[in-house]
């Protein structure tokens, strides 16, 4: 399982890559492994407003649906349309497969997110529980 150092994470297994005021949001490797083969991604509309914790997108495997929550508040300024045709990219390149770019209204929200070490601990404890 891969966890990148330069990203922020959420308890619900999203990653955030910060680029100035913009946040790229995707699902983590942990999430990808647990969901299995992704068959469909339902993306938000460009220009829609989201609050931190709101549902941002939805991914489907053959037998499960999972929500992708927005880690930050702001406006969706871009979506990764490539995922609509190739949802399997989430499985193949999980940290390259962002779902949406959010123009943040409050970058202070980032402070509440997990760093890579904290997130790794979370995943370890979850993996232990399962075992």
């Amino acid at each position, binding site marked *: 399982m891969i966890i990148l150092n330069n990203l922020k994470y959420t308890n619900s297994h999203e990653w955030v890559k910060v680029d100035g005021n913009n946040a790229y949001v995707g699902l983590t490797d942990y999430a990808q492994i647990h969901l299995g*083969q992704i*068959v*469909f991604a339902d993306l938000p509309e460009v220009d829609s407003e989201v609050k931190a914790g709101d549902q941002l997108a939805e991914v*489907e495997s*053959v*037998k499960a649906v999972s929500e992708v929550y927005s880690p930050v508040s702001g406006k969706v300024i871009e979506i990764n349309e490539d995922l609509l045709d190739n*949802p*399997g990219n989430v499985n193949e390149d999980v940290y390259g497969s962002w779902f949406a770019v959010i123009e943040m209204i409050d970058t202070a929200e980032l402070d509440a997110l997990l760093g890579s070490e904290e997130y790794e601990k979370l995943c370890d404890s979850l993996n232990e529980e399962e075992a």
Partner: protein
Amino acid sequence: MKEKLLIFEMSKPGRKAYSLPKCDVPEKDLASMINPEYLRADAPNLPEVSELDAVRHYTQLSKRNHGVDSGFYPLGSCTMKYNPKVNEVIAGFDGFSKLHPYQDESSAQGSLELMYSLSEMLSEITGMDQVSLQPAAGAHGELAGLMIIKAYHRNRNDHRRIKIIVPDSAHGTNPASSAVAGFEIVEVKSNADGGIDIESLKRAMNDEVAGLMLTNPNTLGLFDKNITEIADIVHDAGGLLYYDGANLNAVMGIARPGDMGFDVAHVNLHKTFSTPHGGGGPGSGPVGVKESLIPFLPYPVVSMKDQKYYLDYDRPLSIGKIKSFYGNFSVMVKAYAYILSMGSEGLKTVSETAVLNANYIAAKLKDVYYVPYDRICMHECVLSGAWQMKSGVSTLDIAKRLLDFGYHPPTIYFPLIVHEALMVEPTECESLETLDEFIEVMRTIAHEAETDPGMVKNSPYTTVVSRLDEVQAARKPVLRWNKDTNQEA
């Protein structure tokens, strides 16, 4: 294995599989009767085959299916019992099958009598006071029942009750039906015995709760011992109890939902009452209620006055109509014939034997398959493939391997609260020899999982297709035939 052609791929212009009489009335140009701009230029592209081609096509398709008559079908929660042949003959009688739903009541007295009498019998079996036969399936019965619960509270001017409690082990239709009936769903956890957790239930109950939906025996195949206490808790807080009749086959003549404290109950004629599942339907899901809820039943209600049966539409408090006409009538005919064939004693023996068979299977398999709730079960037993997972063999693999032995596998990955669940419902119809053979095969597979896991994981080997790529099916959906998709395939 050779691919089976689609009917469209067998078509050739000029072939036909029908004959119709010549037009015997003075013929007019279609365009003179119907505005030409409404008329279609080209006929829809339907098949063009000879009668023998068509007959062979469907015969070949049928051979690519497994039915109850083909072999053991222990699909948990679905009660795949034998579908008596005579019931099919009876439902095909001209007097039942060649009857228009809007015929005058005087010309359909036999049908109305049958419906009236079947409702009464179902009331007796479930301990309800009146039953409507209108719902077309179990999920439809649930929906009707939930609408009745809502209408009941509304009629008391209690508009605050917007929630339905559903246990986490429930069938997916329970929360889905609640949502369609406009309720919010509150999920409560199961306790260590697989029953509903009393403390969680107490915490969840308040004056916003319209009712509780429960399957008893529950989806783990266990009878909830606390049922009367549960009923009291719900009733004391002003809620109603809904009985999901999916598992009624365990308790006929033994315990009635009405006596357990349930206010509304649906039954599945296609499970408990032997009507065929038809490859996914038609079913029939009659819904029964206690006295105080009778006014809310869907209309029309079959009633009797002066020895004449009639359809009563004058039901001012009724939730309304939920299905065209009166429900799936010919399914009712078969269920009625079944009840008459079994009689009161027979129905009780059905449930006893169904429970006996399930416990026998569990007893004979629990040393090789993990049994998460190891106690006497009802008509189905829930095993787990957890031990086999250690060698990488999943429940899905076990299910697929069973296909090679000529069995339909048990229900898998349900209930959701059991890891790697395998839910086995043998039904009362099977002989001891059939059960023993199945047990032997399950033991063989458990052994294979240990000694040759790769072989199990690659199964099945004997079916017309091997495991199908469901990921591709969902990523690039091909939902109909056309020339292009054919070339791709």
